[in-house]
């Protein structure tokens, strides 16, 4: 390990090992041939995906004015619903309101139509085939974009897994993609789920409703919301001032604010949720009885040996580990012995937690292999 790493450090000019190279080329050729055979020779192929395509159409309608109603129309009603301010909405062309005449199309506005796609496997398509009527709004067609997606996902999965062997260009490619995509992903999520609804939605709700989130809830206290939203806006502005050539020190203010609020919230939170709750849970009786049934069928209290052992172990464990955490006294003498018992308790706790996690991690790996073998290779 060490000689190899040093060589790599000195510029990576390691002499290629011939037998190894040959082995890898052979493996690559074998892999490519195998994949091609799998993809092209089998009728169901690999990573084949179809789309259920549904055409959706919407037309803009407004409430038919009461004045146009054929009978029983009252002038007052008609005046109360002037056409200019009648509520407009987009509905399905088959909407019941259109047929019944309570809604009418807005003149001069074209319908909007688009397609929604849902990716399915060929086997799922067979099950669906009977339900789809030709000429209807739903059809099934090949989806090369999803097949490509499965291929990309499978290759990226293999690239990452290759790191187990050692660092290599494939892993570096996957890593670079992962960094770029994920950084942008969280920024987009932050923008659309925090900045737009919470910041802009409080400062300029009408604009947000008109251009981005028509369903933004109407606040009962818009003025207060806007005022409160100015605080993070100001803090954010101070933080970003770091990018300015001068006065970058002001970014400490928002950081101080964040640290201060965190300290305040966590101080009380830790004492309430962690300290007090755990103290109560640790107050166990050192002798445990259980309710049983006596020989004559009467209720009796019986000494519960294992319950008592567990309870005593629990109390001793907590006290000895607390002793281990005691910083004022050196771990010598009686304190040292108690602290040592505390360490044993800690190690058994950690071992137990470790053992409980292993199966979960293996399951995760099996899921990735299942993806490779089922979704991609289709074996």
């Amino acid at each position, binding site marked *: 390990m060490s000689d190899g790493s040093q060589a790599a450090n000195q510029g990576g000019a390691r002499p290629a090992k011939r037998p190894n190279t040959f082995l890898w080329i052979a493996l690559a050729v074998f892999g490519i041939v195998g994949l091609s055979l799998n993809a092209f020779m089998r009728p169901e192929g690999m990573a084949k995906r179809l789309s259920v395509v549904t055409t*959706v159409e919407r037309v803009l309608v407004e409430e038919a004015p009461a004045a146009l109603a054929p009978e029983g129309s009252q002038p007052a009603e008609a005046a109360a619903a002037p056409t200019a301010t009648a509520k407009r909405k*987009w509905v399905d062309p088959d909407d019941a309101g259109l047929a019944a005449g309570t809604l009418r199309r807005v003149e001069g506005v074209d319908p*909007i139509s*688009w397609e*929604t*796609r849902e*990716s399915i496997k060929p086997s799922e398509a067979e099950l669906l085939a009977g339900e789809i009527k030709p000429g209807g709004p739903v059809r099934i067609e090949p989806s090369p974009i999803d097949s490509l*997606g499965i291929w990309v*996902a499978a290759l*990226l999965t293999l690239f*990452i897994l290759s790191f*187990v062997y050692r660092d290599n260009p494939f892993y570096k*490619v996957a890593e670079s*993609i992962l960094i*770029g*995509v*994920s*950084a942008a*992903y969280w920024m*987009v999520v932050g923008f659309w789920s*925090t900045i737009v609804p*919470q*910041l802009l939605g409080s400062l300029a709700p009408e604009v947000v409703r008109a251009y*981005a989130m028509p369903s933004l809830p109407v606040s009962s206290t818009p003025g207060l919301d806007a005022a409160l939203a100015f*605080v*993070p806006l100001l803090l954010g502005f101070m933080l970003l001032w*770091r*990018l300015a050539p001068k006065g970058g020190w002001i970014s*400490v*203010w*928002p950081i*101080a*604010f*964040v640290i*201060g*609020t965190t*300290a*305040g*919230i966590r*101080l009380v939170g830790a004492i309430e949720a*962690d*300290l007090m709750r755990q103290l109560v849970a640790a107050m166990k009786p050192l002798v445990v009885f259980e309710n049983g049934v006596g020989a004559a069928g009467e209720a009796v209290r019986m000494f519960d040996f294992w319950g008592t*052992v567990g309870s005593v172990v629990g*109390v001793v*464990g*907590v*006290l000895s*580990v607390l002793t281990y955490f005691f910083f004022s006294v050196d771990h010598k003498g009686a304190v040292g012995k108690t602290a040592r018992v505390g360490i*044993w308790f800690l190690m*058994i*706790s950690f071992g137990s937690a*470790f*053992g409980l*996690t*292993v*199966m979960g*991690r*293996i399951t995760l*790996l099996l899921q990735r292999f299942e*993806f490779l073998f089922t979704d991609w290779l289709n074996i």
Partner: protein
Amino acid sequence: MMRRTIPMLILASAGLLLIVAKFSPFTVSWQETVLGWFNILAAVAFVLGAGNLLAVNLEQISSRRPGWAYAAITLFAFAVTLVVGMFKVGAVPNGMHPDIHLAGAHDVPQAPFGWIYDYMLVPLTSTMFAMLAFYVASAAFRAFRAKNIEAILLLGTAFIILLSQTAAGMFLTGWIPEDSVFSFLRLDVMKRGITEHIQTAGMRAITIGIALGVAATSLRLIFGIDKSYLSKT
């Protein structure tokens, strides 16, 4: 003063205010408000992160330092994802408001942003997560060289717990009758005893210690004893 005193005052007053706020129904919601502010602040701060990411990678590309091609891949992936996400390119229109493009859904697989999420981000992150299976194994194997009693306790316990979760555990000790005096030797009984009593006690003491540590850390910050976050310039 602007660089040290005011930040310390901001920190102290914000901290004390939120401690007191917890005890009155009129102010108990302040915590939530402040957390909401933090989320907005974090989202605004993305500008700094993005700026740093661009600067570092552009510098690497322009100076043609080794690995600049990977920097280019990162930048390309970043730019594409950001553009298709921010502008909701190819978003599926919202059925209620198909005329407002930005009201559409961009996180569905048919939109480019959703495609990138489903076929790139998810497989990449879940494979990275799945790699833990290898690391758990290597950590366990290395620990077999354990020489002291602590490591033996950790590993021995991990081994018992792991064994008790598999069919091997049942096979090895399942024959011991559950109501016998020796039932504590059954792996499933041992597992229950360890997790319910010893692990719980250990974790409980850790949690109590952590609570006190958090309290002391918060107090050091609020009362200006710990000022390491402050610049000395």
